[in-house]
């Protein structure tokens, strides 16, 4: 994941378990984890934070 401002590759430093936000997302919950994972990234230059929600069971996850 690239920082929107610096265009540098961000550091993926955390996977945070979160509750699914919709019924569709709930179908993507990994049964072993019991949660959706929100992958959190930090830019090493500006310190900005971005994240992406990962639901392995959803067909659209890539």
């Amino acid at each position, binding site marked *: 994941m690239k920082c929107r401002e610096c265009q540098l590759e961000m*550091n*993926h430093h955390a996977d*945070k378990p979160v509750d699914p936000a919709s019924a569709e997302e709930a179908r993507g919950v990994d049964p072993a984890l019991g949660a959706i994972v*929100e992958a*959190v990234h*930090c830019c090493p230059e500006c*310190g900005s934070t971005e*994240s992406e929600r990962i639901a392995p069971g959803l067909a659209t996850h890539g």
Partner: protein
Amino acid sequence: MGSDRPVLIPVILGTTRKGRMSAPAARLITDEINKRAGLRGELIDIAELGLRTDDVGAAVQNPELSDTLKRADALVIVAPEYNHGYPGPLKQVLDSYLKEYIHKPVGLAGVSAGSFGGTRVIQNLLPVMREVGLVTIFWDVNFSKVQDVFDDDGKLLDEAYVKRIDKFLNELVWMARTLRYGRENIPLD
């Protein structure tokens, strides 16, 4: 270089109540942060955020606050104790963000009119901090009998608080620098 950026520490004034005595407490902590080289304190008054009640969570985020929190290296939460708990508007603000908090330290300052200085509100905030990914420090600031700590103009009357805040900030800043390095350089996998 990224490491040359000032350590950014928003101080969240955690109540919207008119006449709140938490306001001079939050201003004091913000001022103490800004006295230190290499730090930048910023007072966030939740009464000025235009809090919405028609939805909850990320749907009611304040974009400017989100941007500030994304760049923050640490947080201070100044929380008055209401009925042994934290104010509802504060919880609403806390619940509206998530990625902005992960792997960042938080220092808690309790405020009360009584003798315990918000000890209970701090204890009740701890599980919330853990769940949103904030890392708590082992120093608190407890503003006991807060009506006697500041005068009507918000001027500090008890200089002992400066020493307590100094210890609090020493620990918070150490954690802020350590976790900033981790967030920027240490991958999870």
